[in-house]
């Protein structure tokens, strides 16, 4: 039983301290990166299918600006870039222990993110009124699938950001513990990154 006692002192399920640092980050952040890895595969499946269909049926797509409203979407793209900078400023603020700055930048991110979703809904209404619907053909179905899934991700991001903002007002974050802010920030920047690609291949090409 002396052996069992040794096991009790040193848990065999844990790596010896200092020998196996893992990815070198805390668990929540590692979990978010693994999740984002699966999201990369998800959006690549959508984008890859879009590219293949577009190459196979080049006449099914219209020229940039012919159907889709590029100016309003360009403004929306700029809004999402703005929301990324406000998000990263919130992260920088909490790292520096500036909690009022954290709350201010988080609110800005929520407002800008919500505006993005609102503009996308407006764009959809405008396109549907013009007769550009998901059943319109390859162009319509791929457009609504890709931008719809992205919009869904943004909406989820806004909801999570509202939760994080609420916790920030409760004083749950500090310079010592800002995990929630960093993890939602990673998700939010990923959503921005995906839109950068989607905007180019869906609206400009």
């Amino acid at each position: 039983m002396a052996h069992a006692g040794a096991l009790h002192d040193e848990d065999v399920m844990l790596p010896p301290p200092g020998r196996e640092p893992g990815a070198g980050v805390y668990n929540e952040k590692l979990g978010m990166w693994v999740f984002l890895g699966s999201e990369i595969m998800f959006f690549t499946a959508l984008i890859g299918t879009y590219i293949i269909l577009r190459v196979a049926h080049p006449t099914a797509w219209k020229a940039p600006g012919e159907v889709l409203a590029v100016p309003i979407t360009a403004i929306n793209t700029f809004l999402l870039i703005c929301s990324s900078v406000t998000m990263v400023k919130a992260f920088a603020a909490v790292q520096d222990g500036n909690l009022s700055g954290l709350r201010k930048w988080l609110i800005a991110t929520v407002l800008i993110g919500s505006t993005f979703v609102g503009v996308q809904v407006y764009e959809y209404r405008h396109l549907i009124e013009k007769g550009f619907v998901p059943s319109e053909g390859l162009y319509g179905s791929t457009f609504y699938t890709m931008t719809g899934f992205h919009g869904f991700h943004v909406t989820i991001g806004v909801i999570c950001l509202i939760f994080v903002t609420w916790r920030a007002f409760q004083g749950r974050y500090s310079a010592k513990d800002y995990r929630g802010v960093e993890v939602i920030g990673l998700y939010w920047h990923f959503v921005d990154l995906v839109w950068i690609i989607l905007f180019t291949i869906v609206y400009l090409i």
Partner: protein
Amino acid sequence: MEEVKHAPHPNYIAVFIALGVLTGLELFIAFLPWSQMTRVLILIGLAVWKAVMVALYYMHLRFEPQRLRWLAVAPLPLAVILVFIVTREFRW
């Protein structure tokens, strides 16, 4: 969470300005009377450039441990394989 000593913040505003300028450049190039192939290559190049900037500076990949960077780029070869397989299966 233990207190973490973090590196000085990157210049986030400079990255933001670069993203804005590159987006403006994309909008300009998209409507130039160049060949379709030229525009597509330049626009995809600019989009990838912007995406890499977001990943490196806003998602802080540049400052993360090497193992986490590998984790982040690991899906990309898988994604290429996925597209390649679908392309091979597609009949046109």
